């Protein structure tokens, strides 16, 4: 039974209250967060108030959902009205939003408890969480290593059980890559499945909010609550939301799984490849058929991503000018001086780098060579997938080319850092759903993730296959040592 289902059973039986559960999590955060730095902001009073209300709701037997009373965390890039939103940036150091993100509002409607806001790479730009203006997150499996990024705080918090589950955001792999590095489940829904309203934009055509959980079933339960049309987001598709748990437990015999050769071999660490191939063999043993497929434009995904995402970011981040909110430099002078000083002081080096790249690729004279070309490549990448999905139902790849690396190892080499997205970014460019599930560990005991990609809006099949894999293996029962999990 999944973590959320187990807790629900106890809450329903009256052997546990949400207040007791929340207090337990707050105590764990107090104990373990100083070493992990997974949370930027813990909201004790706020969480306990929500827990009280959840217990009352259960007592009155009113609108009890699978999430009622369940303590969650929220990546600090989504608004929770009443808590700060910093995006791990100095420029939003004291920013308090005036409204809830739609996803947050839907979790609160369901009676979920919000423990606090999790650490991340500044404005979700990074693959290691070392680009947080408030200090890096550590990987619970090995504190000398990074937890991945940009939703590294959420991944570390779920992995170390400092929350039942978390909401992350994924622009080029920011949910799946840290999920793989921390040995948890991370689901990026189809673009348009979940509202982005109240998610601070990094790259609007790629960003998508999704669950980071201890099991596949929990991911389905949370997605169920946050998915669906939102009149406040024109890109949130107005189509029916299926029951994401409908096929959990169904056999996968006959399911066709595509294996793209481009995601194996060169650039992928041997132990990672070996582990993922073992996982694929396991899926075959469950009755799935594997089909070799080709996604020839995959090799352009990272360069394409690193043009489109910074281009959109350069405009999305223009509003942080020190005029209406956020950091304003003390410097006196003219308007231009105010802009320059506020933004130079407020943004960290990686954000600055991407704003500069984005501004450059959109500039007159360079637009056609970079931005326009990248959009054309994006179309080709999406076409590769569309063709592949005429032959297969899901596509299976490693989530990352390697396990979590050591802190500081790539900080001075942005290109190496960007290559951590090599297996994940094409999924965002094509707008597909993707999930990472734990599938093993390397010789150092560091987790390895199996990535499954699905057809647009077909999270149901994705979850079915991921669940079948998870339930027939034991990797989801592996937890990092030293955090008193399972006690």
């Amino acid at each position, binding site marked *: 039974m999944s973590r959320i289902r187990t807790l629900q059973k106890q809450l329903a039986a009256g052997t546990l209250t949400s207040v007791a559960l929340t207090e337990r999590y707050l105590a764990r955060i107090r104990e373990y967060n100083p070493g992990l730095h997974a949370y930027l902001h813990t909201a004790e009073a706020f969480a306990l108030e929500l827990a009280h209300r959840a217990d009352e709701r259960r007592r009155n037997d009113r609108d009890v959902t699978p999430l009622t009373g369940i303590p969650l965390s929220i990546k600090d890039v989504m608004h929770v009205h009443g808590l700060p939103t910093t*995006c791990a940036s100095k420029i939003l150091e004291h920013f308090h939003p*005036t409204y809830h993100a739609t996803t947050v509002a839907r979790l609160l409607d369901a009676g979920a408890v919000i423990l606090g806001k999790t650490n991340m790479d500044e404005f979700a730009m990074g693959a290691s969480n070392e680009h947080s203006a408030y200090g890096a997150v550590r990987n619970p499996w090995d504190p000398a290593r990074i937890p991945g990024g940009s939703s590294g705080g959420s991944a570390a918090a779920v992995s170390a059980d400092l929350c039942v589950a978390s909401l992350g955001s994924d622009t080029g792999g920011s949910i799946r890559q840290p999920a793989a590095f921390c040995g948890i489940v991370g689901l990026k829904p189809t673009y348009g499945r979940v509202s982005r*309203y109240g998610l601070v934009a990094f790259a609007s*055509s790629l960003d998508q909010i999704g669950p980071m959980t201890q099991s596949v079933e929990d991911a389905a339960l949370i997605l169920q609550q946050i998915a669906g049309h939102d*009149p406040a987001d*024109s890109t949130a598709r107005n189509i029916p939301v299926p029951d994401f748990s409908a096929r959990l437990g169904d056999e996968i015999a006959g399911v066709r799984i595509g294996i793209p050769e481009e995601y194996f071999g060169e650039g992928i660490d041997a132990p990672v490849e070996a582990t993922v191939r073992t996982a694929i063999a396991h899926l075959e043993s469950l009755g799935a058929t594997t089909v070799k497929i080709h996604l020839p434009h995959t090799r352009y995904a990272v360069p394409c991503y690193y043009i489109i995402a910074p281009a959109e970011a350069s*405009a999305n981040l223009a509003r942080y000018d020190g*005029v209406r909110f956020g950091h304003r430099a003390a410097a006196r002078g003219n308007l231009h001086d105010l802009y320059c000083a506020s933004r130079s002081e407020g943004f960290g080096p990686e954000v600055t780098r991407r704003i500069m790249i984005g501004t450059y690729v959109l500039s007159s004279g360079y637009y056609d060579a970079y*931005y326009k070309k990248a959009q054309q490549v994006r179309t080709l990448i999406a076409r590769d997938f569309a063709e592949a999905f005429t032959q297969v139902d899901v596509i299976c790849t490693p989530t990352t080319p390697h396990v979590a690396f050591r802190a500081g190892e790539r900080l001075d080499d942005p290109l190496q850092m960007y290559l951590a997205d090599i297996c994940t970014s094409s999924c965002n460019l094509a707008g597909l759903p993707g999930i990472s599930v734990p599938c093993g560990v390397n010789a150092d005991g560091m987790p390895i993730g199996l990535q499954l990609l699905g057809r647009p809006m077909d999270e149901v099949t994705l979850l079915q296959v991921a669940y079948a894999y998870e339930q027939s293996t034991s990797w989801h029962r592996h937890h990092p040592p030293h955090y008193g999990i399972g006690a």
Partner: protein
Amino acid sequence: MTTAYEAIIGLEVHAQLLTTSKLFCGCSTAFGAPPNSNICPVCTGQPGALPVLNQRAVEFAIRAGLALHCRIAPVSLFARKNYFYPDLPKGYQISQYDQPLCLGGHLDISCDGEAKRITILRIHMEEDAGKSTHDIGQATTSHVDLNRACVPLIEIVSGPDLRSPQEAGQYLRALRAILMYLHICDGNMEEGSLRCDANISIRPKGSTVFGTRTELKNLNSFRFLERALAYEIERQIDVVSAGGTVVQETLLWDEKRGRTLSMRSKEEAHDYRYFPDPDLPPLVVDDAMIGAIRAALPELPEAKMARYTGEFGLSAYDARVLTSEKALATFFEHAVTAHRAPKKIANWITTELLGRLNARGESFESLRITPPQLAGLVALVDEGTISGKMAKQVFDTMYATGEAPQAIIAREGLSQVSDSAALETMIDELLATQSAQVAAYRQGKTNLFGFFVGQIMKKTAGRANPALVNALLRKKLEEE
């Protein structure tokens, strides 16, 4: 202007749409609200907020496109126009760029009695920016009001077809009239609901190539537009005549000093880094929607003119004057409904009413006379209650006070005396006291007739019905 050169002018007109809510959020568009009271996370550019397109604004823009004979694009795109300014909350303006909603239309104008067709290159939708004010004498403090931010605008771009400041003025007047007819813009240039920029260049007459153009901004009244264009044409001719070359730049019209000032050169021009806004899906408009909007279009000036000259038998001149503004046409039509004398009513409006407004420099909006009142006045003349001469006197009072003609006539005792018994008694008395003149008349001095009429008119202070007086007098003088 030196006759050796001709001016090439194109106008970019921004019209604020009369929707009740903003282009991408639900905030009110009401003018004059306290600063920063009509705002929300979307129009203040809060992190995480997203735009949602106001379909009513799309409908209004399509109305403009159809009225100006444009092709409505089945798919158009919103783009981000990037630049920093404190009254631009997101650091970019959402505007349509390379795929606008309306393309390739025209507007026919009349210049010196001749019809001329002006090309409309495109109409696109965009959001307005906020408003900055700077404290006088306190250069360090500025204020930003975001009530106007995100208010829907359409930008209507003409071809380089205008050849004089007067033509440009005519074009803007005709365009303004159509937007007001469509009820999509209030046309108020003072409040900025209608704004105009001009692109202008000169070339030797007969040449087919364009000269270097300058862009004139801030032409926010017909007077500014015509004065600024005249100034700029003169300036460019002076530059070229002196052997110089016109520099491509953006100029600001300074009405106080009566001259243009350089705002920025070509080198300082912004690189707006336009790209499609990923927050807004392509705007798709289907034929059914276009058809429904077309069917609901009101009667436009061209059609009205045809009806006025045909159905009402007005002169082309009167018809053009009456249709030049929606308010005027509405006034005329209401008056005709109250009293079906279109030619007479048209005459009263074009001569008396507009004459007074123009002479006093007053606006049509400030008019006190209502259409039924004017119709009533014409009816009173037609019924013979007052004379045409009296009517002008009554009209003066109506114009000044807004009173109904009946009330003025009653108070001032201006109605005609058409009571034949009373007039007969009056004539009998007159003839009795003027026996010498009566005798002279009867002996053949018939030119004395006017004398008798004059006496009666004097007695009635001009109110006697002249036709009746004539008939009665003739009868009395001839009967003995």
